[in-house]
């Protein structure tokens, strides 16, 4: 909890359908359990249809903050997709920003049509690395596929954030609030996903 007063600004970014909202919901619930005020600004609606999606999650003591983070003021960026991570970093990062990235691309329609190009992922990550303090690569999709559900990659990535030590929230709090956010039917799977993320970033 430093920079810009007594607050932590986290952006979770990706593409519609990747589970961005659930990811921010887990982080926010953990933060409230630790006594923080939380505000989340989410993009919704048409974003379900393959558009860029980001959630601004803001933790603060004292008073609540607005739903949007000012430019250049993100402390942590969790990227569910590499190109989206770079897109968000360009607006919201500073040289001290820390990032966690799932390197699996989700190709924009204009790339599929052949009208635009998707640069090699290694290049994207290298450029990102020049903008921020840390880039931690976590194979969210591959790890989630390993437990039988590629869609759980969002929770793997939250796990990586939980294990990163970059938030003032103890890792155990993320684990314990999961049951408040995830339906019982799919809780066990998501607990595994969260743990995979925690272990992955600590390697």
């Amino acid at each position, binding site marked *: 909890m430093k920079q810009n007063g007594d607050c932590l600004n986290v952006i979770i970014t990706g593409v519609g359908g990747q589970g961005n909202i659930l990811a921010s919901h887990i982080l926010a619930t953990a933060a409230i359990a630790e006594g923080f005020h939380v505000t989340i600004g989410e993009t919704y609606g048409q974003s379900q249809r393959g558009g860029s999606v980001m959630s601004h999650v803001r933790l603060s003591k004292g008073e609540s903050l607005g739903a949007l983070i000012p430019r250049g003021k993100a402390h942590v960026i969790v990227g569910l997709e590499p190109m989206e991570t770079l897109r968000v970093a360009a607006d919201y990062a500073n040289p001290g920003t820390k990032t966690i990235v799932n390197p699996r691309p989700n190709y924009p329609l204009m790339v599929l049509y052949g009208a635009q190009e998707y640069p090699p992922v290694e290049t994207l990550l290298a450029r990102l690395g020049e903008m921020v303090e840390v880039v931690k690569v976590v194979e969210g999709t591959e790890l989630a596929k390993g437990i039988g559900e*590629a869609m759980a990659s969002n929770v793997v990535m939250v796990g990586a954030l939980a294990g990163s030590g970059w938030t003032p929230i103890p890792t155990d709090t993320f684990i314990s609030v999961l049951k408040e956010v995830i339906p019982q039917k799919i809780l066990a799977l998501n607990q595994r996903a969260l743990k995979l993320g925690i272990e992955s970033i600590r390697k």
Partner: protein
Amino acid sequence: MLSILLDEPGKRVLMMGNEAIARGAIEAGMKFCAAYPGSPSSEIIGTLARPDVAENFGHHAEWSTNEVVALEAAAGASFGGLRALCAMKQNGINVASDFLMSVVMSGCKGGLVLVVADDPGAHCSNNEMDSRAYARLLDAPLLEPATIEESKEMTRWAFELSEELEMPCMIRSVTRISHARGDLSLGPINRLQRTPRFEAYDRFLSLGTVTHSVLHGKLEKARDIFEKSQFNQYVGPSGAELVIITCGTGWLFSREALRTLGLEDKVGILKLATTWPLPNRFIVDHLKGVKQVLFVEEIDPFMEQNVKSLLADYIGSELEVIKFFGKGSGHVRSRFGPALGEIDPDIVIRAVAEIKGVDYQAQTPEYAERASTLLSEYTASRDLAFCAGCPHRASYWVMKNALALDGRGGFVLGDIGCYGMGAGRSGYFINRTLHCMGSGAGVACGLGNLAKFEFDQPVVAVMGDSTFFHAALPALINARYNGAKFTSVVLDNSATAMTGFQPHPGIGLNAMGNPATQVLIEDVCKGLGFHVEIRDPFKVDEAVEALHDLMQREESSVLILRHTCGLVESRKKKKDRISVNAEKCLGDECGCARFCTRVFGCPALIWNEKEKHASVDEVVCTGCGVCAYLCPQSAIEVEKAEELQR
């Protein structure tokens, strides 16, 4: 347990703005709520219609066929004495406006609250209309919550206010309130037990100038109440030279701007939560000695113009000469300009910095330049598109091919909803008009009735299944009555998909998911005398033939292209596995011009650059299989879910 269900006053929970509004209604003892779904407002009634919520608090919740019916239904419950809530997006208030204009005059009995969620920046809309202009037009009291917590508190208050004034009360939310989440403190639940009754002396009549005069009296009473409202507040030093007057999301953005610039002890903030009628005295009293005012609000300079107009009566007497800044002066502007797009903290920071002559840079110039290079060189745009597995993509492919087959220059008239994307690449640029719900069929009543002017192009009007009930029916009846000739295509994906898959009259389930009378689209159309055909858009050839045949008919006809929304279907069943047989896919040798990836454009079909053949992104693919049907080499293969489980 869902936090809206908790009866634990004082407990702090995380809620979405729309859930907070719903909770505020519950804490007020609301017993009847109705809406037509529309982002960013849908989760208000969506939350209240959850079976566990509706059962626990005993209220009635419904998805009405459209916004005016929703408001009339809610008013009916209010006339019976119950507290009633109606919610809609900004487009909805246009639909509801005719009734709204008279219900403010007739007044109401039980608290009647209308929540309108605006969409600055048009995140999920085809416009960014500022609904607050209606409050002034209607002479209706208008509340603008600034935080998630206030959305709950002010909704609760709005019911009391409505009963005190005996008229409906309007709340304006925006995307960054409705679709934001924040922590708030739960309040006690009002277990109000009223037995609705339409009393012998009850009259709710809108009667011209007489009731208009009563309305003006109520508005003055509202102003008196607003003068004392705790939701209006001043924060900052006394004797500030510059005061920011703000409402809604502008409040926290302004706080952040002053904190960021270190000007909290120099600049004041006057936060208005009641923006029509204005609390005149409260405003004037806080501007004594002030020399500069900056207005910060979402979309139009509504508050800015109203406050300026108020202050014109006081400057030179109680107030000094004030220099005004805001949208009028161009200081509050998004990248599109003033009064366009949504506001954010950077816009407020820049405005204050410019006025105070302070230097502020969000990123160093070198850093910002590098960032901008990265954006242009390493990121591709993400255009909106039909989801993978969306039946609309197949339907648009069907229409494209039927029009080409017909060859007479036919075209498609569209409206809003997921299939509004039919105007873009995802729908092969086929939709040629885009206005409001039902307008495709309405416009077709004109273009389809120009034969005597030697107009001979076939006209196709598309409408969604929910839109059919919402607004297309009067146009279809008009077509029958006035002899317009066009082919209606109902894109029936069995859900109000754009706004979150709410049910509608054609589905046979009500808002709570209980069985309801099913009104079949085909029965209605047949009853109106239309020739009706029903096809599955995924059976592309059959659907193209049917549409082509209907276009040759002498009279208007209806084609229902029916296939459940891919997102709804993927939640219900295991998906089939689709894959490309690399042996069979000829790639660029095929002559199909990479049909599946470049032409058909499903986001799950990707190109394997190394091996030069098409491929399926198994994470994105929903297993609909329509690509397997369309591939000229039959290179795409389907493994059925049932077989995969064996």
